[in-house]
């Protein structure tokens, strides 16, 4: 049984349907890539899983339990963390306050504490008392991920973490995500940056128009220029 099983979900904003029967799975400790051009439904997939935009039909099971229809805070407490694309740190709160808000003791052995989160993102230590709104894009991205870790998730939904970051920052981020994977965290990683995803993930799904068009091992995509051209090149 996979940790997360999404089966045939259809999600819509008002009248416009974005996901048409999307299905995917994430196994425990896996890093799964979610690829596709802008507007194919990657963010909506995350919003559906988190309960922010609940799907109209289909099922989302977490460790075997149906979670569709539950409010976002309950879904988070079950062990799913969300790092949204636009980061959404609390700009008027300091770095430490941003982290403190999300703090929740975990049920697992490998628990993320403030010290451990600071160790993974050492840049945040010196910025502890700075307001979130005064951080650079890269620092904000670190803070959003760090904040989600404070809730001790078992699965992290990472929406386009490398977007808009300088290459050096992206390289750091890749190492940090790899470390989170090594700690046993499952990660569903949506990205436009193909190299970034392929370097980290075990498997990938490629979306187009709200449906999964390809799923397979990461190396299958890497070695298949036809797929890359068809679904991913702009």
């Amino acid at each position, binding site marked *: 049984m996979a940790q997360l099983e999404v089966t045939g979900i259809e999600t819509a904003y008002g009248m416009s349907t974005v996901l048409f029967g999307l299905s995917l799975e994430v196994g425990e400790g896996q890093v799964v890539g979610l690829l596709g051009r802008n507007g194919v439904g990657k963010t909506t997939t995350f919003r559906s899983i988190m309960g922010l935009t609940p799907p109209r039909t289909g099922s989302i099971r977490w460790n075997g339990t149906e979670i569709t229809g539950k409010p976002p*805070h309950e879904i988070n407490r079950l062990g799913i963390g969300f790092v949204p694309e636009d980061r959404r740190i609390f700009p008027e709160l300091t770095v430490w306050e941003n982290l*403190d*808000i999300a703090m929740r003791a975990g049920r697992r052995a490998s628990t993320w504490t403030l010290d451990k989160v600071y160790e993974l993102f050492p840049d945040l230590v010196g910025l502890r008392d700075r307001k979130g709104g005064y951080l650079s894009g890269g620092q904000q991205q670190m803070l959003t991920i760090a904040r989600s870790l404070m809730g001790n998730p078992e699965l992290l939904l990472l929406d386009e973490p490398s977007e808009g970051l300088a290459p050096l920052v992206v390289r750091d981020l890749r190492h940090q995500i790899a470390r989170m994977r090594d700690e046993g965290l499952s990660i569903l990683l949506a990205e436009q940056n193909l190299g970034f995803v392929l370097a980290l993930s075990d498997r990938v799904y490629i979306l187009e128009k709200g449906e999964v068009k390809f799923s397979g091992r990461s190396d299958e995509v890497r070695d298949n220029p036809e797929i890359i051209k068809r679904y991913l090149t702009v």
Partner: protein
Amino acid sequence: MLNNPTILFVQFMNGLSFGLTLFIIAAGLTLILGVLRVLNFAHGAFFMIGGYVTFSLVNWLPASFPGAFWLSVIGAAIVLGAMAWVIERTMLRRLYDRDHLPQLLFTFALVLLAEDLVKVAWGTSVLSVSFPPGFKKAVDLGISYYPSYRLFLCVIGTVIAVALWYVVNRTRMGRLVRAATQDREMLESLGINVGRIYMMVFVAGVALAGLGGGLAAPATSLTVGMDAEIIVQCFIIVIIGGMGSLPGAFLGALILGQLNAFGVMLVPAFELVLIYLMMVAVLMFRPWGLLGHKEVQ
């Protein structure tokens, strides 16, 4: 008048105690506006009911009962908090995702209901609550004598301001409240039950209005229309200070108190106009209020 320091001092103190009393009420209004994004028209009505409940409790408790007045004021705050809890859980929470118009209509309906409730329960004649024992006299402040109860209002208003500042800035609950004003959906995704925070803020805000009504009762008279004047003044305070800003409400309340006190003394015919002029000036030069933040999205 202006060269008589005693009169100036007394007017200043009147402005201070009036402003600080208004702060207690406006603080609840600005909290609810900042967190729930609901403009609570009924806030003045809750203030009024707080006054009437205090009146009833004071008369119900035996006169010899120690601390009868203070218990009645606390009782009024609790009664209003309980009312707020019922209103939020059964009705208001259904309106958070709606436009401002249904919210405004709803809180306006509460105003109409409250006024009729007061007429039925307490009648239309003017009622008054006497000063609590120990606060019936004036105290010597050096420059002049000043009524001790009004002095007490200055102290309690300041104490409540400091306490609120502490809770909002130095406690986890306060951090959650500030986060909820900034991004509700994100906070929800971090495992926080934001609905419960909304409920607590509404209950606390309305309880503050009730507390303000109880504390103000001896310094004013209880009439059915008293809510209308208060809600307008509190709206002005919140607009001058910045919507959702507690320090803003404090500053706004101090300004309004002084404008009111010296307006009455210097230009009695234009006293009300002064307050509106102040608001217009703030809106022209700092539309987001003196201590508010520009909305950035």
